[in-house]
Structure formats: C-alpha cells, structure tokens
C-alpha cells in the first residue's frame, strides 16, 4: 500500500533511522561494563544543537514530537538537503508564501536571521547559518493567535514583525524588515491557513495525501468492542435506535443499554436528560458485571421535576448488576455548581426519587477554570522559568491540583466498581467533558486492554470521539476566535492524567510518553482527520473517514517508536491499577509543558539506559544463535566429511 515517492518521504518513513545511531554504539560494547558513550558527549542530555527548533530535538527518538521528524532528518541528512529553499513537504502540502531576511527572535539564543516559509500545513523557518540549528517547524493548526508587532514607524531593532501564539505552550516572534510591507504576504498566508474556517477553506487534513500501511479508521468497531465486553448478554443489549442520530445528535449510532429498556422509554428518558444524553454503557466488569455508565445531568430544574421512566431506567442499570443493590451516581461537578444548574433547568438526581442510588459529588471544576489554569501554567513555563518562584508558581496555577482531583474521582469510581462490585453512573452537566475524563480514566485503570497502544486508541475513539467530546470547539480547530469561551484543555488534562498513571506504573502500559505527546501534537496539527468536528454525526456529514487520514494510520504504521520497553516485564500484571491521587505523587509533565526550554532536562535517562541494555541483550542473543548455527553447520560438515 505504501506509495513510493521522493526521497523525503522515504526518509520520513524510515523507522530505523534513529535506531541506527544507537546500534552503532551498541556494536562496540559487547561487555556490559564496557558500554558506549564517549565521555565528552555525555551529560548533554538536553538538546545541544537544535535548541530553538520546534521540537525537543535530541538525537534519540524518545520524546521527540512526530511533527518534527522531517526536520530531524534534514539536520542529519544535511548534505543532500542543504539549500535554504529546500524544505520538507508532506504529500498534499505546498508552499504558499515566503519571506527572506526574517529574524526569528529565539527567547533562548537570541535573534537568528533566515527564511520564513508558509505552506498550507506549516510555518517553516530556517536560519541562514550553516549549522542549521535554528529550524522552526510548526503546523499551522497549532496556532491560536497571530499578531502584528510594531508598524512602519516603529523604531528599534526587530520592532516590526509578527508574533504567533501557539496552543502547545509556546509563542514565536519574527522580525521583518520595515521596507515594502515585507511581512504582508506571510501574515496573510499565515492567517489563511492557520484559520481556514474564517476564509471558507478546509483544514489541511482534507488536502493531506499520504498513504500508510495501516488503516486507522478501522481501529475502533463499536460492536466489536461491546462484544469484547460480552454484550449482548442477559442484561445489556446493543441498540441502533440512534442510527440516524435522531434521538441524540451528539451520541454515536450504536450504544448498549439495559436489555429490558424499551424504545419508548428511551425516548422519554432522553427528554429528561440534558442534550438527550441518556445513560448508556461504557464498561462492564468481566466478573462482577458491575458497570460504568455515562450520561448528562437530569433536567430537574428549580421545581425538582421527576421522571418515572428515568427513575425506572436507572433502576434497570442497577438491576443489571446482581452483586449490588446500590448504584453510585458520580456527579463530577462541585456541589455548588450542580445546585446552580437547577436554575437553568438542570440539576442532579435527588436520593428521594432515585431510591438505592447514592449521589457523590467529585468537585471537579468546569472548563473555564481549567482554561485559566493552563494559561497560568504557560505563563510559568514559557519562555523562561524563574527558578526562585518555581514551586510557589506551580502551586498558584492549580494545574496539578486539578489533575489530582480528576484522578481521585476516577480512583473512586474504580474503588466502587472493583472493590464494592457496585455499578457507577457518571455525569457532569452535558456529559462530554469531565464525564469523558472520568469514564475513560477509570476504564483504563480497570481494564488492561486499554493500556495497549491499540486499546488506548479504541478508548479515545469510544469515550471521547464517539460520545461527542467537542474537539472542534474545545481546541478551536481552524478558527481565529482565540478567546472563545468554549475552548478548554479537557483532553490535554486527560492525557496528563494518563502520564501521571504511567509514572506510577511504569510497566503497565504498552505505549511510552512519546506516544502521548504525538497524540497531543496532532490534536492541534489538523494533519489528520481524527480530532476534527464535534461529534460522530458531524464526522459522517463531513465524510471525514473518506477524505482524511486517521492519526492511528500514522501511529500504527510506526508502532516501534511508541513502545514502552518496560511493558514486557509486566505481561502477567495486575488487572486493576490504583494510582495514588496525592499531590505528593503528582508531578508536572515537563517533557510536554517545558519541552521548548533547552535548559530543561527533558529526556528520561533511565529509559535511555534500559533501552541500551535491551539492545545489548538482543545482540547477545543473536550472537548466541549465530554461534549455535555455526556449531550445527560444523557438526553437519563433520558428519559429511568424517576425518
């Protein structure tokens, strides 16, 4: 399937490129003690060369963003691609504007002069210096705001130019020459391709042409996933009542509901739940049959309305689990927020109406609080860190506190389902932000399937994409309303929580940190169709599957670089992970939030060393196998020609 094309693409597809380097050092080091690394290079784990380039740019392929793969290639294959006009292009990508004599104002190493190119996918700056140390390569989908700095009359060096604010924790400043409106073309093209929707254009994903050996669109099959959990069974059935998205437009076409629920009942329950998002199945415990179900808030209102069908439906969910006579309703919101929602017709389940149901509030703040928290975090981390205020600054962003709060909520769900064999119903207000965080996290803690690479892709497809987390709105793909109140880093928080769990259970996951960062980079890049639109329905209407490439096509064609070398050790692992949701364990994910800062120690040296040891072991095994083969051949020869 993979298409043969120019050298660039071949380079990009070469998964062994990075491995070669480390292999070379391995070959010298057959004695364990005498392993590699010339001493002068060591200690420079932080990137020493391409400091200001757009990725964490180490020569080891560990936490490098996949976005920058091209560039790393360019650096290493500099001999063939050295002309300044040469720039790596993806299939379907084309140059739309260029400005020479532009100065990139690097916050770490001062100004660098070079050429700025805008394509329909990315912004690409290369300094005219021979050493190629200043390459900036940013997909325009990552851009949230573009500002002109200074005017024709501005004085001072580098006072006239463009400032670009990105969604991935950095800002970029370019200075242009003041003559001839030199920034005009670049600025216009930047606007056009960073915010295609404002120009009635489509995101780059629709132009992107690359073919992969794997098809990511087939990773998640809703029915197959429900079957894996044993549905249909006596208690749960698959329904296609929403096949045309007529019952609930933000839900997928296929869901599982209690086997005894009737279609009429479902219609009424939908009318009693915000946005018609009624309780449906997320996960079933393979032994106890306790379930995790999800929905939106009930439309109780100030008058405390009740709905017999809704109450009965909840009873059915409870009854589907013979192990417990209780149901826990986890309302992700702070109590006060839940009460406040009554005024707007929403609210929460009263324990009078829902007998045997126990309501718990998880105190997780809303999307606006989270957005503000990330803004503060960016302020703290970029561009430079004030070491004297680091810890207190971290405290005042509340970011880690929010992460802890979400994790604690998920652990409480796990505790109920696993230890008390009790089913849990999760909701917040609309059931597409905090609810998705909680169900997906608790499922990942309960079910090792979701800790594999493909299982994790399924989890994202299922709990996030199919159940209508509004990626378009929350990320703000392709539109220029950077201060839109609907934007919020909800999905980023989820991946941060996952990272926290991987820190606590280093061998429980098939994937590594690089995989998580890759997902985040392409959450914004708009190179793949995966995270476009707000719901399954919209994706069908936009023909996303037919016209764009799935991120999972890309990741699954290159699995080796996302594998966690420690995973093997845990093949007989615990089924359930219970992370400790204490601030004493929660750490800032520096490899993500601080990755642009060259002074940060980004790479995990333990991880690197383990990889070396694994390589060494593999090589010794091969040597031993060769040796045995040789022995065997010699034996055969000896048998043929007895001397």
């Amino acid at each position, binding site marked *: 399937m993979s298409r043969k094309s120019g050298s660039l693409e071949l380079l990009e597809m070469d998964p062994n490129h990075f491995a070669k380097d480390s292999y070379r050092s391995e070959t010298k*080091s057959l004695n*364990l003690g005498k392993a590699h*690394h010339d*001493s*002068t290079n060591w200690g420079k784990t932080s990137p020493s060369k391409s400091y200001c380039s757009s990725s964490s740019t180490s020569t080891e392929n560990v936490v490098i963003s996949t976005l920058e793969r091209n560039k790393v290639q360019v650096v290493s294959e500099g001999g063939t691609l050295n002309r300044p006009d040469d720039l790596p292009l993806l299939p379907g990508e084309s140059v739309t504007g260029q400005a020479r004599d532009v100065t990139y104002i690097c916050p770490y190493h001062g100004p660098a002069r070079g050429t700025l190119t805008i394509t329909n996918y990315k912004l690409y700056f290369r300094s005219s210096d021979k050493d190629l140390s200043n390459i900036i390569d940013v997909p325009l989908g990552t851009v949230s705001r573009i500002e002109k700095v200074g005017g024709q009359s501005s004085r001072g060096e580098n006072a006239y130019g463009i400032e670009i604010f990105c969604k991935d924790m950095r800002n970029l400043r370019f200075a242009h020459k003041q003559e001839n409106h030199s920034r005009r073309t670049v600025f216009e093209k930047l606007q056009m391709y960073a915010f295609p929707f404002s120009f009635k254009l489509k995101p780059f994903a629709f132009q992107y042409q690359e073919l992969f050996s794997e098809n990511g669109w087939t990773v998640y099959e809703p029915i197959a996933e429900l079957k894996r959990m044993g549905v249909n069974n006596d208690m749960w059935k698959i329904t296609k009542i929403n096949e045309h998205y007529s019952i609930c437009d933000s839900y997928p076409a296929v869901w599982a509901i209690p086997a005894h629920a009737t279609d009429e009942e479902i219609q009424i329950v939908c009318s009693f739940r915000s946005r018609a998002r009624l309780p449906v199945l997320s996960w079933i415990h393979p032994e106890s049959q306790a379930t995790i179900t999800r929905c939106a808030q009930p439309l109780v209102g100030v008058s405390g309305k009740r709905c017999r069908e809704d109450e009965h439906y909840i009873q059915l969910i409870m009854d589907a689990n013979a192990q417990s006579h209780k149901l826990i309703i986890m309302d992700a919101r*702070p*109590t006060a*927020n839940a009460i*406040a929602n009554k005024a707007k017709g929403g609210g929460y389940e009263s324990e009078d109406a829902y007998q045997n149901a126990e309501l718990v509030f998880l105190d997780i*703040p*809303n999307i*606006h609080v989270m957005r503000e928290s990330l803004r503060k975090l960016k302020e703290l981390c970029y561009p430079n860190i004030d*070491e*004297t205020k*680091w*810890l*207190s600054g*971290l*405290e005042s962003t509340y970011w880690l*506190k929010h992460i802890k*709060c979400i994790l*604690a909520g998920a*652990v*409480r769900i*796990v*505790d109920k389902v696993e*230890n008390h064999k009790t089913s849990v119903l999760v909701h917040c*207000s*609309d059931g597409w932000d905090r609810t998705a965080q909680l169900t997906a996290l608790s499922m990942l803690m309960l079910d090792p399937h979701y800790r594999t690479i493909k299982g994790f892709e399924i989890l994202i497809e299922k709990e996030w994409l199919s159940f209508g987390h509004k990626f378009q709105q929350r990320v703000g793909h392709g539109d220029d309303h950077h201060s839109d109140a609907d934007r919020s880093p909800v999905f980023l928080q989820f991946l941060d929580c996952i990272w926290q769990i991987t820190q*606590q*259970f*280093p*061998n*429980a996951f098939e994937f590594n940190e690089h995989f998580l960062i890759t997902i985040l980079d392409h959450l914004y890049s708009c190179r793949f169709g995966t995270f476009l639109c707000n719901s399954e329905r919209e994706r069908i209407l936009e023909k996303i599957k037919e016209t764009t490439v799935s991120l999972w096509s890309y990741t699954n064609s290159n699995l080796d670089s996302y594998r966690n070398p*420690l995973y093997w*050790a*845990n093949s*007989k*692992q*615990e089924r359930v992970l*219970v*992370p*400790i*949701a*204490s601030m*004493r*364990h929660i*750490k800032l994910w*520096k490899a993500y939030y601080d990755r642009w800062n060259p*002074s940060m120690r980004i790479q995990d*040296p*333990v991880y690197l*060393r*383990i990889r070396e*040891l*694994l390589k060494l*072991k593999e090589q*010794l095994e091969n040597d*031993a196998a060769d*040796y045995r083969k040789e022995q065997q051949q010699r034996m055969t020869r000896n048998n043929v020609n007895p001397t």
Partner: protein
Amino acid sequence: MNDKKENSGFTSYLGEPQLENIALNDSQKTKFLDGETLVCEPQQVLMCNPLKEIQKIRGILTVTTFKLSFASAEDKDTANCYQQNYLLGINDICLSSIDCIYQLGERSKKKLVPGQSVSGKVKELLIVCKNMRYLEFSFKLSDKDSGKIIANALLHHTYPKRHQLLFAYEYKEPYINNTLLKEVTFFYKRQDWEKELQRTGCPGWRISQVNYNYQVSPLLVETIIVPKSVTDNIVKEAVEKFRNRFCPVWIWGTRNGAALVRMAELLPTITDRTEENKLLEHIRRSHPDMKPPFIIDLTSPSPKEIFSSYIRLRDLCTPESTRVFKNQDYKFYGLLDSTKWLNYVSICLFNAKLAAENISKENFTVVLQEGDGQDLNCLVASLTQILLDPHFRTKLGFQSLIQKDWIAMGHPFANRLGYIHSKEIEQSPVFLLFLDCVWQLLQQFPRAFELSETYLITLWDSVHISIFDTFLFNCQHQRIMASMGSNSHLALTLRSMWDWREQFSDRDISLFYNPLYDDSFKGILEPSVGISNLEIWGQCYFRWLSDLEIRRGGKPQIDLFARYLVQEILQMQLNRNDINGKMTGRVNKNKEEYMDLIKKVNSFFPFSQNNASVDTSINTVLLTRDTLDSQSLFNLSLNDDK
C-alpha cells in the same frame, strides 16, 4: 517473658473487653544485643497508624538502653521483609534515631523536652525519628502509668548529655573484620593521603606532618597536604589564625595542577587578611601555570538554616492525622517551597558545579571557604569530587570519599546528628542534604553511579545507629581517645559502619548496587541545578506513609527489571566466553525470580513495611476534599457551569 503471668485475676471495670495476655513466639519477641539492658516493658500497648484510625495493633512496648521496641503477635514473618536490619526488629527503632517525642491529647500535641519528666497521665505518644519515620502508641488499654513510664524512660535514655552514655560503650559483641579494606579507604593514616595524592597525580603539593599526634590541633586532620613551597613553620603559624585551626588544605586535584582546597574563615579577631593572602599566594605558586586560585565562599545555607528547613520538610512527611495529611496535600507545592529544602539542594549543587567547571574547564585551583570549614565545605567538596572523579561514584570510592571529606576532615557528626544533647550543640542534617544532592545526581545520571537509591536511604538510616563508630564522633582525635578508654569509661570497640554485613544480609546488600551503572562511563557530570529540574526525594521521605505506597507499582518495577536484564546479560556473556558454549538453566531461573518479585512488590520496596501482605482497600478518606477544599476558589465561577 510475659507468658508466665496469668490474667485470671484481672477484672475490667472500665468497660474494656477483657484482654488476653499477649503470647509471642520466639521470632516475635524483642531481642537483646550483648550489653543491652531492659528499662521497661508495658503490656497491652496499641501501635496506631496515624492515617488509618481503625488500624491498631496490640503488643508489648519495650524500652532498652539501645532501642524502643514494639513486639506483637500480629507481626509478620520478617523473612519477606527486605532491608531488615539484623540489629533491630520490624517495629524497633534505635534510641539515637529518635528526634522528638510528643504527648498527644484529644486535640493537643505537646513536645516533651529532654531534662524534664512527665508527671501526669500519658494517653498517647508520638515518636518522630530523624529519618522521618514516626510511630504512634496508645496506652488506653494498658496499666495506668504505662504511658508515663515509657515517656520518662525515653526522655532519660534518648537524649544523653555525655558521649560516654551512648550505647556503643556498652555494646559487648566482639568485632573482627578482615575484609573491610576492600570496602573503604579510611584516610586515618598518612599512607592513605599519600596514595590519594599519587592517584590524582596532582603536582605542586606535599604531605605535612606538622599535626602529627594532633600536636597543632585536635580538630584538624592529622595528615595535611599543603603547597610544596609552604614550610611546616609557616603552617604552624598560620593555623593559629583560622577558625577551628582549619588552614587551607588540599583535598583533591588533577594532573594539570588544578586542586580542590578547603579552608575556614580567619578568626573574627583578625582583621588583617595578610596571613590568608600569604597562603593563597603559596597555592598560586603550587599551580604549574601559577594561576591564582578561584575562591568560593560557602556561607549559605548555614547549619542552622538547614536544620530549620529540615524540620519543615519533616512536618510535611509526618502528618499526625488524615486531616493534616489532606491539608498539606492541598497546598503541597507551596509548603514544599516554604521549606526551602530544594532551594538548599539547588545552592549546593550550583556551588559544586561551579567548582567543578573551574577545575575542569579553566584549570583553576578552587578554594572552598566556610566559617568553621566543616559543614558546607564537606558537602560541596565531596559533591565536586563526585562530579569530576568517577572513582567516587563507585561504592568503594563513595565510602572513601565520606571518610576523607567528612570523617577525617572533622564534620562534627556527633553534634550534627544529635547524638548528644546540650544547649550549645547545633544539630543539623548537613549530611542528609548531601545525600539528597547525590540522589538528585543519581536521577540525572543513573548510569554514572555504582550505588543505588536504596544504598543512600539505608546510609541515612544507619548513621543513627549508635553502635558504629563511623558517624559517632566530632573528629578523629575524639575517636582515638574513645578507643583507648579512660578512668571514666571503657575502651570503645571501633566498628565500622561500612561493614554492611553487620546489619544486612547479602540479599539486601545486593540491592545497594545500581543495575543501570555503566563502569565505562568516566565523564564529568554537568547536572541541571535549577529547582525546576530537582525533585523531592519521595522514596526516602515518604516511605513511612503507607497510604502513599503504590500497590505493585513505582520505581522498583523499573529497578527490578533492570536487575533482571543485567543478570541475563552477564550470564550470556559468561556463556559466550565459555568455550563449550553451554547454555545453562540459570538464566531462566534468574528471570523467574525477578519476575516473581516484580509482580509482588509495592512502590516503597525494599522499604515497604509488609511486602508479604498487600492492602487491597483504597483509603477513600484521602480521595475526598475536606471542608477547606470545598470552599475553595474553584467555585467562584459556578454560574459558568453549563
């Protein structure tokens, strides 16, 4: 001991259930060392977990001249416990490792001060140790005065006023060791210094015998290394001018002539710096390029600042209730910031890096200067040498470095570790700050160290055990006097702590080695020293908080996997060198052993309290917010919630 008594005559009038006497089997009973004597042993004491109010174990609490010991019929078999010290039981602590004793009331917490005695009823005691371990005992089931008796016994025996009252003087177990030389160079003898001068190949310096027999100063090391151009007479005159008579002495150097030199400040009475300048001029002349030395002033943090930082850090690690735990957790990073601990770690690493860069890149001789010359000088000098010299990152090298830069150079361990209590003595965990710095380096350069995190933690635990001489004295002279005996006390048997077999099994000692070590790596370490690149040493400080233990997770999973890998690689290399190329079954056995452990152990391994039993329940109390939280700032925007 206790099973002789019958409980038939006992009638409870207090509404408590009638308690059976505690029957212990031999492995559970408190064991005594040779020379250790019993002080008191009340029955029916409850040991509590401050973070789990329901979890209480009933047992016998014993105070001896050496330790506080809790023995219970519920104690697990120690066979499954790792890092279990031979000298102590699972629930035993050496008296010299106790830092504070608190009397707990309903809502109060009162610190018991040495020198006073308790007269009222004591219901509960909280014992906080120097290694952040803390234990809570309740006396509500025991005889009326039990709490008071224990409190007074502890106050009396935990805080000796004189060195000769330490248990080391009473410990009768004979000690012979022949293998120790492979473990450490002591730097007590002239030859050790000569060898070090030769090993480093640093030109321009010579051995001086001016302090032979400590005739110049008992505080100064006996063998000192001075610039070649300095005569013994100059030294004799000069020492008088310095605090603690700590004139500039060589501690390490390079073949290119850059030396690392330590000195104290001039005495406060001396205003004229001529003497100091004279010696600095000699140091300049000792350099092959006649380069003037680079002086680093180490005034901050002072031992006092380190101590108060440590106290705040310890408060964060010893919450006496779930309420306190949650309140601390709620603003953890702010509280951590206000301890300043990481700030001090950062300063020390910064200074060491500065010294190392000046030596290695600029070929300057670096002179470290500090008040008395025996606190931060020890810390920064030894860190600098770790950065520059791979020898000091091996186990032998590291232990020798501590002997050289801390013990021989007279870091006042007896005072700083709080072995002796007196108003004039300044207790301060300077050494812990050093170990924390080393741990930070280990995080950043895991392949560079032969030692493991487990080694560093065990070292901090062991420095408080009062039978070894290594960390017991303020200076070498004091050690010699003690070992000779006098009218007032018997001769103390010198027993080195580096003889780890006195405390641990071979299985535990094997965990002192870092599986990620790469002995071909000889490079200079250039650590990131900013606070944002440092971490809190959780394994050391939090290991007593069982609620923070990650079940079957955490770093031991990586550590054990790496151990497995290394074993397997070594085995294969062995096989390959084996002429017959026989593949033995040993590899697979190895694999299974480690895999088995990986599946069993929790995150505080090997310091987990009970590896054998895994607590499956989740302490949900810790997951909820308390009232403080729900009034938090997050609710300000509640109307926005859609």
